[in-house]
Each structure stands twice: as C-alpha cells, then as structure tokens.
C-alpha cells in the first residue's frame, strides 16, 4: 500500500517559486496499479519521484504499508522499491545477468540465490535465459531492453513499484504486447504500483485507478470506468477526449451487458416453428440455430421461413460471429460493424450459448451509467478538499 499525505514540492527557479506538486494526498491499495495521468508539467512525475526521493519533497509524508518512510535511509528505501524509467537505463557496461542481479547483490544475496533468481526472472518476462543472460544491453531491441528493465525492478521482489512512463519509448505494436505481458505478470505478483503516463488509453488499460493531475494538483482520483462516466470537471472531460464513451468500451465486458433471453431453434425444428419463434421474440431478421449441446452453428433468416418449407438444418446461413463472455465491448462493436449486424450471440469458454448482446443493450449500458454517475457527481465534493 502506498499512501501520500499532503506531499508538496516547491522548486526555486530564477523566476520565483514553482509549485510542482501541491498537497497531494492519495492512497493506492495493496496489489493495485494506480496511473498518474495528466499533461506534461502537471506534477505527476514529480509526485512519483518524491516517493523514492529522486526528488526531495518540500513537505508532506509518504507511507509504504502504513510505515512512514521519512525515517528510512534513502538507499534502503530505494532497494525496497522497484523503479522503471522511460529511458530504461540499463547499465551498458554490464551483461543482462549483471543488470538484473544488481539489486540482489546490493542486498547481499549469495551467488547461488541471485543466479537462480536471474533465471526465474527471465522465465517471468518470457525471454530465453540461455540466449540473453550473457549478452549486453546494446545487443537487444528497445522492447527487449524494457522487459529487462522491468525484470531488474522486480529482482528483489519489492512490494512496491514505481514506473515512470515505462512503455513510452517503445513502438505501438510492441508496447501493446509488453503491456499485456505486464498485466499478466501483475495478476500473479500483485505488486502495488504507481505508474506515470500521459496516454489516456494506456491509463485505462493498465490502471485499477487513475489519478488526473493538473498544474500540480490532483484533480480526480477514481477507477477508470467511473472516471470516464463521471469526469469531475471540464478539464478532466476535455483531457479524456470527446470519445470517452467509446473508451469505456474497453472497460466493459460482455458479461456485464449480456441478456440471457434469446430464442433459438435446433436443426430438427421446422421453418414454421422458426417463424413462430421469430415473431414471438419480435426479432427483425433472423433466429439463432444451435446444436444439441447448445452451441451456435448458424442462423435462420426471417425471409427463408416465409419462402421455404422444411427443416431448419437444411436452410441455415452461416454465423456472422460469436463473442466470448470475457471479450470487451470494443471487440463486440467492431464485430457488429464488420458484419453489419445489431446483435451477436455470446458463448462461454466451452462454446455453449449464454445469451446475446445487442447494440441497444450496449448503448443503454454505457448511457445509463453515465447519466446516473453524472447526477451523483454533481453533489460530490472535489478531491483534496
């Protein structure tokens, strides 16, 4: 757990004092990722760096797991905090193995233990230990280097990690891959992480919570979905962008929106039965055909039921697409657009039908929460007061 208590930094510049961070108070619960987000110069990096004293705070306190860190020796404090920076900062004079065992060595681990740990870490970041441990950073690509950077920060298994735009310098394709890998690792490791970003999409993807900064002040601190559905003021609103409702698509899963009411037919039903069910459910153009284990296999269109006679199994059309319960709405929307349809069947991991998701359900879900939050937010006080 990280708790900041009125953390403040005032820089003395030739033009007078500049308040880079103004009485920041916030708490990151154990095992969560908190993304500090804001335009450049908003104080997010300063706030992060005051935690491990790369920047000395002017006033205020930092608590890690409830312990006031102001009494701790700087080196001891830092060795207990994993630190990843945008420029990666691997030591070019050391091999990959030496780089990732730096902290264990500083902590006085014996050789056998840190050598084993290096191999564990390479497995964790999905890189081949034999191929890479003896190489030098300059021989690696940017993406590989930052994986090693993360491994180095994790080496001594610190409970807390600070990450300063860690994936900012990596090309978009690799960045998405590394973000996914990192989230997978985090699901297992459950570190308490503060993560600076200026990329709203990255924040939504990575953050369990997002803290929005502006001119040294913490403006809003909420969970991503709440942030997007109920921005506190016009600054947050404009920072999140006009398409913030679309960004929420990433956060909502099919299982949150699914309606389990869905009419189906099986292969042995006649087209007349199909027609009756289509009318009974009020479907406009088609009904889903499932097999005997309730797995979707095709659709029977309304037109077919009017113009043909016989069994459904002889008149089905192919299925446009199915979505999984765990998929996010962004994928669903994309599939709907691609196949020009307003509904899709949803299946669980076994492929069994669970229900359907319609365009109306989606817009309703996003819209209703937005309206509800908005009226609630009007009566709330701003953070920090």
């Amino acid at each position, binding site marked *: 757990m990280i708790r900041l208590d009125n953390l403040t930094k005032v820089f003395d510049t030739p033009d007078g004092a500049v308040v880079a961070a103004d009485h920041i108070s916030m708490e990151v619960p154990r095992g969560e990722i908190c993304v500090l987000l804001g335009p450049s110069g908003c104080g997010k990096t300063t706030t992060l760096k005051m935690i491990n004293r790369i920047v000395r705070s002017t006033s205020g306190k930092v608590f890690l797991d409830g312990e006031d860190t102001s009494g701790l020796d700087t*080196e001891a404090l830092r*060795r207990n*905090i994993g630190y990843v*920076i945008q*420029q990666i900062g691997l*030591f070019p*004079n050391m091999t990959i193995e030496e780089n990732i065992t730096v902290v264990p060595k*500083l902590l006085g681990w014996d050789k056998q233990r840190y050598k084993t740990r290096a191999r564990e870490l390479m497995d964790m970041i999905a890189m081949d230990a034999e191929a890479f441990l003896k190489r030098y950073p300059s021989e690696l690509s940017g993406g590989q280097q930052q994986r090693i950077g993360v491994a180095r920060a994790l080496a001594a298994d610190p409970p807390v990690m600070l990450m300063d735009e860690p994936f900012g310098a990596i090309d978009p394709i690799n960045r998405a891959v590394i973000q996914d890998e990192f989230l997978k690792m985090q699901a297992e490791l459950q570190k308490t992480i503060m993560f600076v970003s200026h990329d709203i999409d990255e924040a939504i993807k990575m953050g369990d919570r997002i803290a929005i900064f502006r001119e040294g002040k913490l403006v809003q601190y909420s969970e991503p979905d709440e942030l997007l559905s109920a921005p506190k003021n016009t600054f947050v609103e404009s920072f999140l962008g006009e398409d913030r409702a679309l960004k929420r698509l990433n956060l909502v899963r099919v299982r949150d929106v699914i309606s389990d009411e869905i009419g189906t037919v099986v292969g042995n039903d006649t087209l007349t039965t199909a027609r009756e069910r289509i009318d009974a459910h009020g479907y406009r153009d088609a009904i889903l055909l499932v097999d005997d284990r309730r797995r979707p296999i095709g659709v029977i269109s309304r037109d077919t039921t009017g113009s043909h006679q016989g069994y459904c199994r002889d008149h089905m059309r192919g299925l446009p697409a199915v979505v999984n319960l765990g998929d996010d709405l962004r994928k669903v929307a994309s599939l709907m657009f691609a196949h020009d349809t307003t509904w899709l069947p949803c299946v669980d991991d076994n492929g069994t039908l669970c229900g359907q998701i319609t365009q109306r359900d989606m817009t309703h879900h996003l819209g209703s929460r937005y309206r509800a939050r908005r009226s609630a937010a009007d009566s709330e006080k701003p953070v920090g007061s």
Partner: protein
Amino acid sequence: MPIRSLSSALKLGAAILLFLAGVWAQASGLVDEFRFYWPDIRYLSVQHLWLTAISGGLAVVVAVPLGVLLSRPSVSRWAESLMQLLNVGTTIPTLAVLALSMSFLGIGTAPAIFGLFVATLLPIARNTYVGLRSVSPALMEAAAGIGMSPLQRLLRVELPNALYVIFAGIRTALAINIGTVPLAFLIGAGGLGELIFTGIDLYDTVMMLSGAIPTALLAVLVDVMIALITFLVVPRGVNPARQR
C-alpha cells in the same frame, strides 16, 4: 604470390623497397655506424622509458582522481571554470614548462619529471571529467533509483562507462609525454634526446637518427600497449572495439 588486388600489389612493392633500402644501408656502411651507437641507444631508451613511466604514472594517479572530483555534483559550480584553467594550462608549450620547472627545481631528473608530469596531467584530467560527465543522466537516475550509494554509482556505473574516454585521454597524454622526453635532455635528465640534440649540434645525421628512430618506435610501442590495455580493461558492452 599471385597479385589479385591493388593492396597486395602495394604490399609487394613495399616489401621490395624495404629490401632494397636494407641492401643500400648495408652497402653504404650505415648499419655499422648505427651499431656503433647500440649501447647508447639501449641505455638511453631505458632512461627514456623510466622518465615516461614515472611522470606518466604520477599524472594518471593524480589526474584521474582530480577528474572524478571535478565531476561530482557538489563541485559542479567551480568545475567548469577550473577546467578552463586547465585548458589554458595545456596551451603553454612543454619546452616553456620545462624551462619554468628548471628555474625553481634546478637541473636533473626531478625538474624533468615535474615538467613532464604537468604536461601529461591535463589531457587525462580533462578526459576523465568529460567522460564522467557524459554518462547519461538516465543511467544515473536508474542507478540512484535502484538504491546504489554515491560511491557504488561511481565505481559500478560511472567509471566503467567513462573508462573508454579516460583511456583515450591517457593514450593521448602518454603520446605527448614520450614525444616530449627528448626535451628533458636540455635540463639534464638524459633520455634519447641526448643522441638527438648532440647529433644536431655535431651535424651527425646518424647519431641524430639513432635517437630519433628509437623515440618514434617507443612512442608507437607505448601507444599500442595502451590500446591493448584499453581493449582488455574496458567492459565489452561499452567498448567500441569489442562490439560485434
């Protein structure tokens, strides 16, 4: 040897020329004249190398810590101006430095070593300072953020990464040093300068060359030696000569 390219043709040409030069030198009796100076060359070369070793060694021992000191953040306010002072110092001709040191240390080995030491000091200190200052700030931040103490940062990160530049400074400085040692003869410290200057005074070309050629060879030898040490000592990851 079949000739397939321009470079192999040049090599063959050079070998033939060298052979002809050898034949001519032998025929004209030049080789015998040089052999006459052989004991002098041996004795003076050793003396020459000692002067370089002592003055150069002292310079390394003083200049590297000086460069380290100047690169510390706590002295950064004065470091630039002090470096400028050292830069001005480099522009004073070595002969003048020798003359100055003779004027208060007298003649002999001591003033020569002092003069050579001063001339060698500056390039090493400057390269140490510049090398350490050019270690990337990101690297320094990573080292600090990881929990290294200032001394650990210096020894494990800054110095290894600056080592190549520091060695380049030592190489330059020793090249200057070994080329300057002949001047030390002028203030009575011996060295191969004895043959060179006496040769000039006596219009004795062979005597002069007996000093000049070994001086040149020693300079090349020392340079190669430092290059070899650089190759071996600078970690592979930051050694341009060892990158694959």
